[in-house]
């Protein structure tokens, strides 16, 4: 659930309610708020700009078509969009049989990998205030994990690999991979607690 913004604007949920009745302007506003998050996530998974654009267009299309069934109990609108975007991105990578390449590059990125806190510098100024802090905390928390734990979580989340596939990829025993995934996610649960407790718009 990427964080949403405080402020005087209509909450995301109000935008989704407008989407559900076919209000295109609400879709534009939703894109303005979360398009950068969706594009960044898509690019981290598919690694090609043209593909990332296709994924984002697909993901917003799915949000548009399914806005009426959005369920606030399942989490924030941004989190819903992120889940859909990641899923579309992984579909595309799998369909292209390009997963292996993506993994290789993720492995190359390794040390300065996905967790590098590039954060706010590339965001437009308004987003920097709204999302910058949450982004930095997430990036820092992931970056502070022991490298082997961070690696398996990135391969699962951004690479879409199963535990078995990760074990094969890293030439590690399956049990080791399972332990790292659990330990890593548990640590993140602790360090991201400030982002997990609060209610949202």
């Amino acid at each position, binding site marked *: 659930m990427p964080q949403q913004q405080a402020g005087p604007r209509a909450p995301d949920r109000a935008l989704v309610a407008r989407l559900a009745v076919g209000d295109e302007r609400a879709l534009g506003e939703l894109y303005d708020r979360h*398009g950068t998050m969706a594009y960044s996530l898509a690019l981290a998974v598919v690694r090609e700009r043209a593909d990332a654009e296709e994924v984002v267009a697909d993901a917003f299309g799915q949000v548009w078509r399914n806005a009426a069934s959005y369920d606030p109990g399942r989490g924030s609108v941004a989190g819903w969009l992120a889940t859909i975007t990641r899923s579309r991105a992984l579909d595309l990578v799998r369909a292209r049989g390009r997963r292996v390449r993506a993994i290789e590059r993720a492995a190359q990125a390794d040390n300065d990998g996905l*967790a590098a806190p590039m954060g706010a510098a590339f965001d437009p100024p308004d987003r920097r205030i709204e999302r910058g802090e949450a982004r930095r905390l997430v990036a820092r928390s992931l970056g502070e994990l022991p490298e082997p734990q961070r690696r398996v979580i990135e391969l699962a989340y951004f690479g879409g690999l199963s535990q078995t596939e990760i074990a094969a990829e890293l030439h590690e025993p399956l049990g080791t991979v399972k332990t790292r995934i659990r330990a890593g996610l548990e640590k993140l649960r602790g360090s991201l607690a400030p982002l997990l407790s609060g209610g949202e718009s």
Partner: protein
Amino acid sequence: MTDHEWSELAAPYTLGALAPDERERFEAHLADCAACRAEVRALRDVAVLLADAAPAATPPPGLRDRVLREARQARPIRRARGPLVPWLAAAACIVIALGLGYGYVRERAASRQTSAALAAARDSIAARDSLVATLLSPDIGTAALAATGQAPAARLYWSPSRRRVVMAVFRLPPAPAGRTYQLWAIAQGKPVSLGVFNTAADGRVTAAMAVPPGLTFELSAVTEEPAGGSPQPTQQPFLVGKVTPAD
């Protein structure tokens, strides 16, 4: 598996790192284990935050227009009333979606029809996600439906806030040709249909159904009815259960 071994699957499950058969078994287990559901709820929120760890990238200027243009070609879907896709049918849709995905990618200028079919398949996956999400609601209430004789059994999960039930049925042979099973909510002694369902060859099904607005009920029951279901039960229920609010 022991309870402990099951709970160890929560982390890889929320990261999408279980193999498909493992995932299915774990989701079936979730239908029966409040502790694992709570664990998944908590870790799921952590996993979703990982989206924010993606290196920030600036979308190209034309992307906003493309998003709006493609949306214009598809109308929003109104919320489905009545029973949703049963679990197994939804699983089949995932296969279809992947198959179509290949075609979709190979021919970029694919016909609008293909895109629409693909979109529909994806929406089915969303329906399946919604089924799991209902199971994970904090306000979930349950009813164990026991057979009056032996064999079949069902568990019903009811989330009043979402107005949805999810039912997991075990050991119930598929209804004969031309017949169907129907789930009833009994409110003040009066049965209200929640929808029809059938089981797979292995005697199991997990299905999500909508609960009409404002309806609260204390009992639920299953009858066998003519295909398409009946406005009122035509026979005595063979499964009956009392609803117990919240875990």
